[in-house]
């Protein structure tokens, strides 16, 4: 479980996050949604420790992450898997080397065990015969899947995804969403996904937090969203005629 309390973050005079509280449960896919500039990626970076919040606390299973120094955070970080918006694969390494990198650093596994683990992770994301390829030789969807394979290589307890669907075609997007949902249930991990993809929201949003201008405006499930009266949320989610029609039909 991850709990955040009263998170504030400013860059200079620009206050991006204005006191966010939330609890993210294990075994569930939690989504942070909001328009561009609403602070959702900043919030994710505050949670994983890439940004230090100006105020507020982050707890990973009751341990105060924000109060720890770099060395103290390492055991928790080993349990974190993260998929970045642009995959952030290491350019100078092959797909296999990308996946076994964390194992190389932190485990005492033999070479063959690490290779087996890489093959298992790649098979889990439906990638075959890509072990020796470099990231530059992969398509956008394949990069995302390698990113997920790398994220699960250490069997994470916490999984974070920053806009996993950006730049993908709708079919691949759905595959990635399904994969995130399956992995969350398989590893019983606490998964937080930052997205503004409405297919993801409707498809895998078990808990959704809507950010607007750095504040939490709404929280609930994807079914709760259909009956929400919050104007800002409705303006964001049902902006397109297609989504409006879908809501009316589902109602």
């Amino acid at each position, binding site marked *: 479980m991850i709990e955040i309390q009263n998170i504030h973050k400013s860059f200079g005079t620009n206050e991006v996050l204005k006191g966010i509280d939330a609890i993210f449960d294990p075994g569930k896919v939690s989504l942070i949604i909001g328009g561009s500039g609403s602070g959702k990626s900043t919030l994710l970076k505050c949670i*994983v*420790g*890439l940004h230090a919040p100006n105020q507020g606390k982050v707890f990973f299973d009751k341990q105060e992450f924000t109060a720890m120094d*770099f060395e103290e*955070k*390492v*055991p*928790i*970080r*080993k349990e*974190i898997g*993260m998929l*970045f*918006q*642009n995959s*952030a*694969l*290491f*350019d100078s390494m092959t797909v296999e080397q990308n996946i076994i*990198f*964390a194992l*190389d*650093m*932190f485990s005492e596994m033999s070479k063959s065990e690490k290779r087996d683990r890489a093959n298992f992770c790649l098979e889990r994301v439906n990638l075959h015969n890509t072990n020796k390829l470099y990231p530059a030789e992969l398509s956008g969807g394949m990069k995302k899947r390698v990113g997920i394979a790398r994220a699960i290589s250490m069997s994470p307890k916490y999984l*974070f995804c920053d806009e996993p669907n950006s730049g993908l075609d709708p079919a691949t997007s759905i595959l990635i969403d399904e994969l995130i949902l399956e992995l969350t249930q398989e590893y019983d991990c606490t998964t937080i996904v930052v997205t503004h993809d409405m297919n993801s929201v409707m498809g895998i949003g078990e808990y959704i937090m809507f950010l607007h201008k750095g504040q939490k405006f709404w929280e609930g499930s994807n079914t709760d969203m259909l009956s929400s009266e919050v104007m800002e949320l409705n303006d964001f989610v049902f902006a397109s005629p297609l989504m409006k029609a879908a809501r009316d039909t589902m109602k």
Partner: protein
Amino acid sequence: MIFYYFGEYLLLLKKVFKRPEKWRIYWRETMHEMSDIGIGSLGLIIIISTFIGAVMTMQIAFQLDSDFIPNSIIGQINRDSNILELGPTISALVLMGKVGSSISSQIGSMRVTEQIDALEIMGINAAGYLILPKIIAGIVMVPVLVIIAICCALIGGMLGGILTGAVSQTDYILGIQAGFNGFTIAVAMVKAFVYGFIITSIPAYKGFYVRGGALEVGQAGTRAVVIGCITILASDYLITALML
């Protein structure tokens, strides 16, 4: 403002010199960097220093064209100039352009594509993993390259002298042997060691803290080379003043 950047640079170095997560991986990276910095720059250093040596011989011969000065002095001046100044400093300035800009753009592009964030998320000390092997490779390989540069400059000086008739081979060899003071080599090695640190750490710092995109990565590379060259010249002055 300069103190802010200097403080940030020192804090980065503090992170760099933390205990590595796994020595074996750092060792592998260091070997890889040594090959990149050392073998990768060897051809350029040989060509530049050979020509500098040849040109030095011709210019010294031109300036000391007198019946009262023995020709062997050409070799002697060429030797001391190359060991004390041209070998270490010109090599360092050339390496700053080649190696420095490469380090800055490599680390900078890793920063803007979130690869450094990915390392930190995994619990890896990104500064240590990315920069420490480069610094070790720099302080080991730059002195090696400087020794090679000095040798090539002396050989180039002899070739230049023979080809133009400025000095005979016998006089030149007599000159480079006469009055040799081994301390000059020590000064050259101290300079090379310090330059090796500057050539790797300043571009790594500029790349590590770059913000933005491809344009900023390029700008960081340019700034790293400019700041690095000025720092090399300032430390050249300081080491010379302290040691000679």
